[in-house]
């Protein structure tokens, strides 16, 4: 075929080309789902598309600026309101400090190990949501802070109401957060009312979490607030996660079906806080701290 003039040469046919690219895609899908041999590929593409994401964020940024400008006319009013709220919060914070001191004292009296760091000392970085995917099966969001801003994998992300998720992928200038509702995401929690410990997992549906493997006779009620228990060291203890929506206690099943809904609203706010890790993750979680 080498003698054929340029005009007639078209390369392989459409189906052959599709076959090659489909095979390549399937390999990539399998690689991404199971093996994860080259995370660098995703990193590289992430760096390439970052400027585009940044440009796409400009309209939102301008909108924010305008909103801020309008809000600046009402600064005095807002200032008074915030001052009131600050005083109220301050009162609670003072109580918290007193309780913390009392707690430490009681623990010392009991001879317990001081292993639980309270979340009042956690450092936080403010980040903005840069992108939420359209597909309903991606329970992930992209934030505008990355490894250049000292963000680490596994850090918890919260909003003003409660836990949003956890950082699962890092790019230099952005990061990906897996939301609570993701199917592969679980948070160790306890019921605030009776400190019953459990693990809450995402179901892959919006606004629905489930508590697995709770026996039918467990003391859990509708409307119970679930807060992080701090076990595992990723999430600082005491942050609201979800409220129990409904409980289906079918005697045929061994376990009760407890469906809860997350407290934090991811689709409603644009800013979130990235908390520093409560404690560095130990290599062997079974190893007890020496004391």
């Amino acid at each position, binding site marked *: 075929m080498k003698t054929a003039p340029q005009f007639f040469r078209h390369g392989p046919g*459409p*189906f052959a*080309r*599709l076959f090659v*690219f*489909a095979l*390549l*895609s*399937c*390999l*990539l*899908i399998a*690689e*991404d*789902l199971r093996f994860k041999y080259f995370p660098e*590929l*995703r990193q590289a*593409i*992430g760096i*390439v*598309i970052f400027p*585009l*994401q940044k*440009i*796409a*964020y400009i*309209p*939102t940024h301008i909108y924010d600026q305008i909103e801020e400008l309008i809000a600046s006319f009402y600064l005095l009013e807002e200032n008074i309101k915030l001052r009131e709220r600050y005083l109220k919060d301050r009162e609670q914070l003072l109580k918290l400090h007193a309780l913390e001191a009392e707690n430490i004292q009681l623990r010392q009296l009991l001879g317990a190990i001081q292993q639980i760091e309270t979340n009042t000392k956690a450092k936080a970085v403010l980040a903005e*949501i*840069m*992108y*939420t*995917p*359209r*597909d*309903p*099966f*991606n329970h*992930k*969001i*992209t934030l505008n802070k990355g490894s250049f801003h000292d963000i680490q994998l596994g850090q918890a992300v919260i909003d003003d109401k409660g836990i949003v998720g956890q950082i699962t*992928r890092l790019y230099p200038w952005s990061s*990906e957060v897996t939301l609570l509702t993701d*199917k592969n995401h679980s948070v160790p929690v306890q019921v605030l009312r009776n400190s019953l410990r459990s693990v809450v997992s995402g179901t*892959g*549906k919006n606004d629905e979490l489930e508590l697995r493997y709770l026996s039918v006779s467990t003391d859990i009620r509708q409307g119970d607030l679930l807060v992080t228990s701090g076990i595992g060291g990723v999430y600082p203890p005491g942050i609201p996660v979800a409220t129990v929506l409904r409980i289906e206690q079918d005697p045929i099943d061994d376990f009760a079906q407890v469906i809860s809904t997350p407290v934090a609203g991811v*689709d409603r706010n*644009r800013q979130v806080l990235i908390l520093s890790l409560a404690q560095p993750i130990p290599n062997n979680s079974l190893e007890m701290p020496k004391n």
Partner: protein
Amino acid sequence: MNRKKTKDRNLSPDNYCKQDVYIPPSGEYIATSLVIALILNFLPLQENILIFRPDFVAITIIYWSVNYPYKMGMSIAFGMGLMMDVGNTAILGQHALAYCIAVYLTLILGRRLRIFSLTQQAPQMGLILLAMQIVIVLVAIASGAHLPGWQYFSATVTGILLWVPISVLLSTPLKQKSDFNAL
């Protein structure tokens, strides 16, 4: 552009001269259009608007592939798909596969599609967009996701509605201003 043919059934020399002449797009022009489409896809939107957002990248790829198949290869579609995957926090290869299948469909149907006018093309593009979304859903289900609600496919409807404006927008800079009395 062949797509004007059906409009002018009674083709007189006068009408023929009045037809718009389009110059073939340069590589830079196609690249720019794809980058703008990517930016449009990456716009952070509220959830209730997001559900109606069409896949601008897919529509742009299909437009170039239908009208200038020698300019839009499957490799470009594959690359754009990978970028969409990373930006969209999706499984790597999900959109790439969907875009390649879309290009394949347009390569097969392209010659037939070009006969129709833009408004007649729109619903047929809808079928290609729907096929693409189904591929994306199938890959997601293979990874263990739930079946999305029917609202997920509303992007195809907005895609059909936007086919004519996007096509006009993309072809306008290529229009050659020619005075047929010049000769």
